[in-house]
């Protein structure tokens, strides 16, 4: 057990040291890869483990990013206050959506959250000075934290820490009674209810928790590009995150991570071949995965490693 834990710690230490050996371009790619993995892990808990399809995950990422930027630079709040308030905003919004929406069956949560995601973009575009309209907000910098200015590779270490913390939270939950309750809710809500699982409450907790995690990831993202604007948080990425989890293997942390890595890096390899049309390949991959390999790439791995 301790050996296994040591291996995990070692793995994350390597991930955290790596950015110091990368140039600024590769640092940027690496940071975004880590953020996508973080998002995919959270979304996997919602979609893969608890069986809830939502398109708001990426919107919450945007809500987190925008709130921290607005709180810090438009309202000039101190850094710790802005972070806490940002999380509170995500949690309150998630609860406001989840409590009524999770009463609905099946795909309806997906549609409510799709509308929410679209509404978020409308609000961003029309928000005037508060959200910066279609141009968004740019030209800000991470304020010094306790006198420290974190920039360059050391900010990448912050993202590695975010990934590790997200994985730790989700892992612990997954391996507790709560994780089993979530899987029961996914596989058979009636049976879960009969076993004493409060189905609606489980759904609300999972939706709120994963949305808050996405929001926190968004706050970290806000200082990666030092700009937030509406196109970043559009619907394409909301679909992409779903596709990552499906292709990698829904319901498995490793699957979500593999899917995120593959679909994030694929455009870099594909662009000489298909230009900007890598989405076509993503769509085909998703259809193929659902038809031929519902367990995703991790399912393939299981079959061959056995």
């Amino acid at each position, binding site marked *: 057990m301790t050996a296994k834990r040591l291996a995990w710690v070692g793995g994350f230490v390597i991930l955290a040291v790596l950015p110091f050996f990368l140039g600024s371009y590769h640092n940027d790619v690496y940071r975004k890869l880590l953020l996508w993995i973080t998002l995919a892990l959270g979304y996997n808990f919602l979609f893969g483990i608890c069986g809830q399809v939502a398109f708001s995950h990426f919107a919450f990422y945007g809500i987190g990013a925008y709130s921290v930027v607005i709180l810090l630079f438009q309202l000039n709040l101190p850094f710790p206050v802005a972070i806490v308030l940002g999380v509170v905003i995500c949690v309150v919004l998630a609860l406001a959506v989840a409590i*009524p929406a999770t009463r609905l069956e099946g795909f309806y949560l997906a549609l409510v959250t799709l*509308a929410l995601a679209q509404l978020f973009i409308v609000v961003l575009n029309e928000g005037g000075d508060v959200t910066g309209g279609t141009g968004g907000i740019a030209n800000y910098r991470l304020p010094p934290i306790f006198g420290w200015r974190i920039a360059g590779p050391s900010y990448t270490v912050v993202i590695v820490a975010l990934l590790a913390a997200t994985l730790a939270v989700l892992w612990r939950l997954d391996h507790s009674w709560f994780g089993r309750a979530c899987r029961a809710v996914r596989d058979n809500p009636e049976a879960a209810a009969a076993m004493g699982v409060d189905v609606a409450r489980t759904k609300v907790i999972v939706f709120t928790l994963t949305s808050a995690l996405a929001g926190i990831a968004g706050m970290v993202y806000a200082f990666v590009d030092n700009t937030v604007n509406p196109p970043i948080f559009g619907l394409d990425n909301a679909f992409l995150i779903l596709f990552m989890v499906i292709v990698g293997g829904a319901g498995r942390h490793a699957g979500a991570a593999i899917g995120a890595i593959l679909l994030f890096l694929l455009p870099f390899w594909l662009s000489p071949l298909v230009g900007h049309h890598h989405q076509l390949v993503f769509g085909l991959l998703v259809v193929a995965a659902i038809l031929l390999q519902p367990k995703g790439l991790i399912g393939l791995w299981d079959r061959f490693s056995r």
Partner: protein
Amino acid sequence: MRDLLELAVSATASGCIYGLIALAYLLMIRPTGIINFAVGEWAMVAAFGGHLLLYRYEWPYALGMAAVVAFMMLVGWGTERVAVRPLVEKGAPLLAPILALLGVLVVTREVISVSFPPDPLPVPFPFGIGRLEIGPVGGSYQSFFIIVVTLLVFAGMWFFFEKTLWGKSFEAVALNRRAAALMGINLSRVTALSFAGGAGAAGLAGLLVSPNISAHYLMGVPLAIQGFTALVVGGVGRVEGALLGGLLLAFAEQFIARYAPIPSGYTQGVPLLFLMIFLLVRPTGLLRARA
């Protein structure tokens, strides 16, 4: 008053488009339970079909329209074959075909965006650009054309479901799949037909709306959301609900845009708010399913 009637005509025309998209969803949801979000992309494909046949090759309108709708029905049938039937036969959960169709959505959009230039492409009006006035009611030719075609489609649908054996078998499958199969109804044929019909209805909507907004590869998702909102407002229980929901949504949208004191950009949010409120407050829609 004139202004109001003018607005009412154009709102009715948009409502008819939403109603046709809602009908496309409904045709597929009723017998299968599958929400096919690709209907918006089907409307988009039909708009590009209109551009190709009617604008570039200058086919006569009626012939081009028939060809586009027939082609769309073929697309719907093929989609069901490739992305839905294998999953249903495997006994996969209902979510699997819904997600597979999301993949199809992206593939469809990208195929169009690879094949055509990125700018909006023109689609001709069947009767040119002009105004028709009947007493105090006035509107563009296209508005009246949309309204007439949509009413014909819904009348046809009503006839199909109420008067034909095929329509009855659709309803039987919608009410109870297993019982319908036991009564000798061919489930896979009904499913295939519902997808063909859904694609035909969505394609017609795309073709009718495209002269006003031009064919563009990103036009699908907004149509899909508006059509779905119309469906939720009207309720999935009855065919008339689709049209009613579409009209209500279009009137709300256009009258709020015209008279409500909110910035114009926010009016894009009206259908989204409508969708959220209806899903949360009254997910069964306004019309109840007939027992």
